[in-house]
């Protein structure tokens, strides 16, 4: 079970988090069908670092981007996203 450094709560157990998708799979609601489906179904899937969107669903409910190594599971960075970053 990972330990994820939530930007708002500090290090917490993976149990409190849910995985959403990789950053490259985010579909812009304004995108045309081809672009949207490319994002949904075509992935870089690197054997190394990737950027993933996670949510601290059972903690502060905020969203974040993890830079996670897909082989070693090392989390190199966590960045807050969402309206809280507007502050």
């Amino acid at each position, binding site marked *: 079970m990972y330990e994820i450094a939530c930007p*708002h709560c500090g290090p917490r*157990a993976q149990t409190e988090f849910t995985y959403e998708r990789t950053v490259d799979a985010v579909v812009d609601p304004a995108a045309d069908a081809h672009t949207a489906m490319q994002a949904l179904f075509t992935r870089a899937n690197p054997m190394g670092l990737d950027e993933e969107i996670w949510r601290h669903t059972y*903690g502060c409910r905020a969203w974040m981007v993890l830079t996670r190594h897909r082989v070693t599971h090392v989390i190199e960075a966590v960045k807050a996203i969402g309206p*809280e970053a507007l502050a």
Partner: protein
Amino acid sequence: MILPGNATVTEPTSITALPAAPLHALEIWANPAKVAARVQKALGFALPAMNHSAANAAITLLRFEPTVWLAEGDVSVLADTLGDDGALTAIGGGIVRFRIAGPGWRELLLEGGVFDTSAAALPVGATAATVIDHVGVRLHVESDDACIAYVPSSYAQSLHHFWDEALSLIGA
């Protein structure tokens, strides 16, 4: 040493369901600094920081989320401070508050948990949202001797039962 069945806490720890209270979600979506200033003026205390709480005689604000505060008590004075920058939504019907009091509360909350409840990680006045036995629970440390747990109403009865059973294990 912890031998089988060897209790580590000897004084009693108690779990009490508290009466329903007015609870609101206070969400701020814009101009956080300006809203904070208005709130401070209205309440006499600053909006608490993440995972902290602050209170006056009428209202306690608990921050579990970056943009949302749990407001416990009379929110009438708050409504005017928000303008078009935030909103209040009543949520008290969906939450049961438990006071877990006694020397064993920190140990009890490790049962089924994933969160470090030691005084260093969760000092008096702190708040934390976490998972206890698969249920999303919010904690507020009232004092060294007591913690308030905010539990979804639908899970309240079975989580209470879970804690009651666990009490016999930690010997409280």
